[in-house]
């Protein structure tokens, strides 16, 4: 058997691929659900209901999807240029850190000024965090996968150090958490008496903007060329190094913004469990979306629904909520195969 590239990938096929991948992942997870002794249809029904079954559930899912859209975009932008940024988790925390510092009452500014400042600074912090590994990659040829992964641990320890030291909230009853941001630095709520905040609009706007940049602008054109064939891009006169660093700033910036938005929109203060792995899940989101900015929105909502739904399901059954993590990991692996089958067909010989 061998693989033969399809001359054209029909749109239907590239939409079918993620659907098929998710279906396969759900089937495989059904084995684990059954192993837990729960009824598979009931468990999945509980999961769907928990994620989408009520107004409240829906807002919870969308709240959860907000950082996932941003980290998904971070991964998609980087992967498109073949910059393997696996460090969105660390970049997210750096963004959050800067947000609580600047938004914690350091400046007494009106909200319309302070909030953008805090968000932009958070994004800048995330971008700067990825800039290091990107420079090491283009200057010394150091594999950015390992450096960004290792940076995640370094950043978490750094944040932990500050939360137990300089940034520790004196009113925090000894818990390692920062003081909350002031009201002027809070993102407005979208729906009363829910946790859904304006970060979602920001994420959606950025997804649309990135789609435009990607398909319509010189920047997007250069990014795609560098990602698809850096040698040819360089030969044609494109500044590959600069494009790589630019991509790193954007990708890290999106992840940093995810952190800043979580702090200013949802939590209000910074703890070490701000992100349940949004950075890593963002990779899955990007892959499910086949690196398409608009697709990222759909994939992020799906992954968010899985996490929110699994929490609800595990409260009612014996299935541990880690089923969500398994489902997400399997979705990624199945998506890789599905993407391959969409781009190639199997032939004998």
């Amino acid at each position, binding site marked *: 058997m061998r693989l033969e590239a399809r*001359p054209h990938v029909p749109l239907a096929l590239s939409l079918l691929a993620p659907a098929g991948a998710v279906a396969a992942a759900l089937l495989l997870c059904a084995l684990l659900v059954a192993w837990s002794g729960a009824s598979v249809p009931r468990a999945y029904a509980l999961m769907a209901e928990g994620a989408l079954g009520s107004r409240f559930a829906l807002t919870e899912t969308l709240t959860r999807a907000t950082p996932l859209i941003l980290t998904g975009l971070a991964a998609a932008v980087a992967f498109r240029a073949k910059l393997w940024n696996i460090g969105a988790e660390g970049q997210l925390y750096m963004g959050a850190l800067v947000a609580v510092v600047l938004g914690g009452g350091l400046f007494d500014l009106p909200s319309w000024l302070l909030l953008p400042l805090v968000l932009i600074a958070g994004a800048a912090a995330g971008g700067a965090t990825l800039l290091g590994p990107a420079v090491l990659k283009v200057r010394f040829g150091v594999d950015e996968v390992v450096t960004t992964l290792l940076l995640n641990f370094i950043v978490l320890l750094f944040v932990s150090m500050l939360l137990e030291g300089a940034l520790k909230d004196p009113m925090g009853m000894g818990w390692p958490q920062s003081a909350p941001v002031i009201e002027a630095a809070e993102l407005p709520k979208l729906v009363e008496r829910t946790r859904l905040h304006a970060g979602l609009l920001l994420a959606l706007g950025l997804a649309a903007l990135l789609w435009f940049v990607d398909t*319509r602008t*010189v920047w997007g054109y250069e990014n795609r*060329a560098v990602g*698809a*064939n850096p*040698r040819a891009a360089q030969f044609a*006169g494109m500044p590959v190094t600069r494009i790589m660093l630019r991509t790193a700033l954007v990708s890290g910036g999106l992840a940093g913004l995810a952190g800043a938005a979580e702090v200013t929109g949802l939590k209000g203060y910074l703890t070490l469990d701000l992100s349940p792995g949004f950075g890593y899940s963002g990779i899955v989101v990007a892959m499910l979306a086949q690196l398409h900015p608009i697709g990222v929105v759909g994939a992020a909502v799906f992954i968010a629904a899985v996490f929110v739904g699994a929490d609800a399901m595990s409260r009612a059954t014996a299935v541990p909520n880690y089923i969500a993590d398994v489902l997400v990991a399997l979705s990624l692996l199945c998506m890789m195969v599905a993407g391959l089958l969409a781009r190639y067909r199997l032939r*004998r010989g």
Partner: protein
Amino acid sequence: MPPTPPGQPVLRLAGITKRFGPLVANDAVSLELHAGEMLALLGENGAGKTTLMNILFGHYVADEGTVEAFGKPLPPGSPRAALDAGIGMVHQHFTLADNLSVLDNVMVGTEPLFRLWSDRGAAKRRLLDLSERFGLAVRPDATVASLSVGERQRVEILKALYRNTRILILDEPTAVLTPQEAAGLFETLRRLTADGLAVVFISHKMNEVFAASDRVAVLRGGRLVATRRTAASTPEELAELMVGRSVKPPTPAAMEPGEPVLALTRVTVASGHGRPLLDAASLTVRRHQVVGIAGVSGNGQSALADLVSGLIHPDDGRLTLCGAEVGRADPADMIRRGVARIPEDRHATGLVGAMSVWENLIAERHRDPAFSRFGVLRRRAARAHAETVIREFDVRCPGPDARTQLLSGGNMQKLILGRTLAHGPQLILASQPTRGLDVGAVSYVHGRLLEARAQGAGVLLISEDLDEILAVSDCIAVMYHGRITPLLPHDRVGVGQLGLLMAGHWDILPDIIGESAHAS
């Protein structure tokens, strides 16, 4: 090895058909080979020669047809079965691991995989023994990376002989050799056939078919159109069989060269280790002039191309374009200065295969106001430009939105020509511009280069194919170990002399150039 009755073929291909999607690479090809004979497989690029041999060696599986070696059917799709049946293959792109030693490369796969030890002593003795018997000198402990192209080919042949090969296939074996090395190779192959081996070599060069083969099989468009005893045929007959129509070689009209467009003055480019890539190389290319650079691959041609493309910079010496000195130029700078660059590797450097035709066509000028404004691409203008290039350069493709990787090699090359020549270049750098193209595309490319020359461009043609150099160059220079000979007028230098220069015998230079040229 099973004994084969005399007169029986050692190899029989019957009705081999192979399709790649809509393309029929081999169409019901049947062929026989006898012990002690040397068969030339002749055909132009894309005729299906390599595909046929890859099926024979088990890299591909045929859609139809069978292969028999020594009277026994050969299981398809298994190089191992082919090797066990006594078939060896020397690939055009050598299959050697550069960082391992010669002995490692010869030994890999010859011992039972799960044996707990490896008998290197015995293997080394056997290798040296074979090397002596067939006059193929090698150093078993040298790493392959340190070998010249000719030495690597010897290792490939020894790899096959080490496995008791009785049928040896060589894919374009002379493509990378000097004429003298090629003659030496055919002497070696003669010794092998005298020893009872059967040899098949793939070629598209008429002269070596007549110099070396007993029999010739001609492939055209995937079909076997004729087999002849070489002695009973003529070059004219074979040429017509091979191409199917008569081909007129380009006849460049004589032209008076103009002022220099490119000048290298003692340019040195360091390699970071060992001898420099370019070593005090000097060269001048003038308007209305095609300068051909001949040489065995790996003697600095890539560095010369990279230098003129703007990818690397001189560590020492001067590079001038149209009289202006170029410092640390980058590719964008070279494009602005009017250098049209045709890269050696269309797929890896020339084009972004995953992007569309129109996107590739604006790649060198996407920031021009013609194709973008305020950072936003003018997609309509870019598509219109693509339509024009497609029409003017006769690119066969579904349209501007087609993905580039789906185009044939010849059409990809036309795309690159269209991208670079459409803007009235001062200098054209053409690196192996016809590698892998069929005759029609080759003459198209040559025609375009000569047309640009007529319009006043200077052309720097780098090629490993001496025939190509001789066909279109006004002057020829030879590269060896990063150095470049003075320009030799086309009519003053012969193939034999070029071959000697390519092998580093520069002591003959004074005889060619003569006193008069020296004075100027």
